[in-house]
């Protein structure tokens, strides 16, 4: 969406490394749009952000994935200049917040997690107001079209659905014709269809060469939108890399989940399960057992034999390709989402 002289560097996915972090050299030139080094933020005794590092390359989407309370909002609000970190260093578009506040603000777009727009303003009125803050920016009509609110443009905010309100929030962020779009859980609370429509808006922005920083606790969203990902928990990065690389770091071909009819899953010991052929690790989740599996066919065959030998009955069995959720569970022992 920016003029062409701010050229887009081709992605270099091979540079992504699940162990050593996203990009090794610090931003020189136009390639890196956001640099965060050693960010720390404390609220009293609570360390909400505890030494986070990353970089965002121009034209890519960085996903910040983590459960509620992980420190996502705190991190992104530091990048947006709303919060001052207690430690560490932030550079946005090669500039620091303390020296070039207005200049950065002119060139970014922000959607906050909790903004409530005035119910009685119309879509156009709201967009026109936000547009007036920027020296250069997008055409309002064009933004209305991008966010798919053409028919609703004269409707008051109170008549919009949850998904439409969120798209409007993103629309307000697009009015500056931003080089970087910061989105804090843009689709939380939306139904799958509304979520997909918002993803399309974000993808349109990216297709125009825009850079995106996105927080989410929704793994499908992160997998679909993010080129690079950091997974955070308790204010620390626990995994980083491309979604593919992070999933691959689990070293599993698939995940096998099953339960036993009328029996405690712990009748099968961890030892027994882990030593099955093709199984890497096992974990108990309520009435279910979840196996991380390297060779699916061999593992299932072995599992059937074990269950039969022990005189137990298999209740429910399914397998799926490993997801980010599985990585998160294997790293922290808990799920990203409670629901």
């Amino acid at each position, binding site marked *: 969406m920016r003029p062409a002289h701010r050229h887009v560097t081709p992605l270099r996915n091979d540079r992504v490394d699940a162990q050593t972090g996203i990009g090794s050299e610090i931003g020189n030139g136009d390639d890196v749009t956001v640099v965060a080094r050693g960010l720390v933020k404390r609220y009293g005794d609570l360390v909400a952000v505890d030494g986070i590092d990353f970089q965002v390359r121009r034209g890519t989407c960085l996903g910040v994935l983590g459960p509620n309370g992980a420190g996502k909002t705190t991190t992104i609000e530091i990048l947006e200049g709303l919060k001052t970190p207690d430690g560490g260093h932030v550079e946005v578009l090669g500039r620091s917040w303390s020296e070039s506040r207005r200049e950065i603000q002119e060139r970014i777009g922000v959607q906050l997690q909790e*903004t409530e727009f005035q119910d009685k303003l119309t879509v156009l009125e709201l967009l026109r107001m936000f*547009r007036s*803050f920027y020296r250069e920016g997008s055409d309002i009509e064009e933004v209305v079209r991008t966010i798919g609110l053409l028919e609703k443009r004269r409707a008051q905010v109170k008549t919009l659905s949850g998904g439409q309100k969120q798209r409007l929030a993103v629309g307000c962020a697009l009015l500056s014709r931003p080089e970087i779009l910061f989105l804090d859980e843009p689709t939380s609370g939306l139904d799958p269809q509304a979520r997909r429509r918002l993803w399309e808006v974000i993808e349109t922005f990216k297709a125009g060469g825009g850079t995106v920083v996105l927080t989410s606790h929704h793994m499908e969203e992160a997998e679909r939108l993010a080129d690079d990902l950091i997974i955070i928990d308790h204010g620390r990065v626990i995994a980083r890399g491309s979604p593919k690389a992070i999933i691959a770091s689990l070293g599993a071909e698939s995940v096998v989940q099953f339960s036993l009819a009328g029996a405690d899953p712990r009748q099968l010991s961890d030892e027994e399960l882990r030593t099955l052929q093709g199984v890497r690790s096992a974990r108990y989740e309520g009435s279910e057992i979840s196996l991380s599996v390297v060779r699916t066919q061999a593992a299932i065959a072995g599992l059937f034999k074990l269950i039969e030998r022990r005189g137990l009955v298999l209740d429910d069995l399914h397998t799926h390709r490993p997801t980010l959720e599985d990585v998160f569970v294997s790293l922290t022992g808990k799920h990203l989402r409670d629901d």
Partner: protein
Amino acid sequence: MTRLNEIRELTRVRVVLFFREPEAIFWVFIFPLVLAAVLGFAFRSAGVEPSKVAVVQGEGIQRLLEAFQRDEDLDVEVYEDRQEAFDKLRKAAVDALIEPGDPPRLAFDPDRAEAATARLRVQRALTLAMDGGVDAPLGLEPVTETGSRYVDFLFPGLLGMNLMGTGMWGIGFAIADVRRRKFLKRLMVTPMRRSSFFLSFILSRLVFLFLEIVILASFGRWVLGVPFEGDLISFSIVCLLGAITFAGLGILVASRVRTIEGVSGLMNLVMMPMWLASGVFFSYERFPDAIHPVLRLLPLTGLIDALRAIMIDGESIWQQGPESALLAGWCVLTFLVALKIFRWE
């Protein structure tokens, strides 16, 4: 260029939001009219009402009724039952209760001015009837010219009260509301200048001020017949100064609160003393002399004093130096403090 545009858009949004709030329109434009009309009507002829007296049936009532009949300031009701008449007296539905006899007996509440008046009138009627005498000669001059009625005194007070109320509520609520919605926080990640934000509140306030003054003043002038002795320019300047001062006070009161309840409480705390003590409904000179200097420092006192001087006494703004300086001082002070302590997040 962007600057003007952003001020215009922010102001437009404030004005639009105001006009989409029916309650706000009621409180700003309709309520003060109703209040002025009702109070003006209620106090239309205070003090010239005839006294209402209850007379209980009994021996010698005829003599009493004849004596009272000649006095047009006595409004007589006859009761069969003493208890019934006494209940009326207790509820102050009548000002005095008279029982025939020798001498007749009069029951009244000496703490009520109306009752004391009724007593004197009854006494006089009986005296005149007894010796058949006439009143001592006295030239009477009824004063009914405009400018000295209660409503003439009240109207500038209501105008001042309205400037205070709409300024403070309008701005205080709007600021608390954008903060509660985290909308203020959203504005903070744009290059919007903070001064434009404040300016938009003041400018939108001036739009309403214009409408408010035109509507209220027309009503006062043409419906209530309130005088406008002074010049329009002085009147406008004082209204403007008052509106901006209370806009500043509204911003100050809302500068840190996060909830609508919080801002309501604080608003009432700030406005209540001025409603009572700044001379809206009665002159603050009824309070002890010792606190007059303090009352005169309140911004509403200054505003109402200046409005009365201009509207009733026909003075000009130049004769209102202390009042204008007081308002300007409050204005500067509140803005400085508000900007200093304002909570943006």
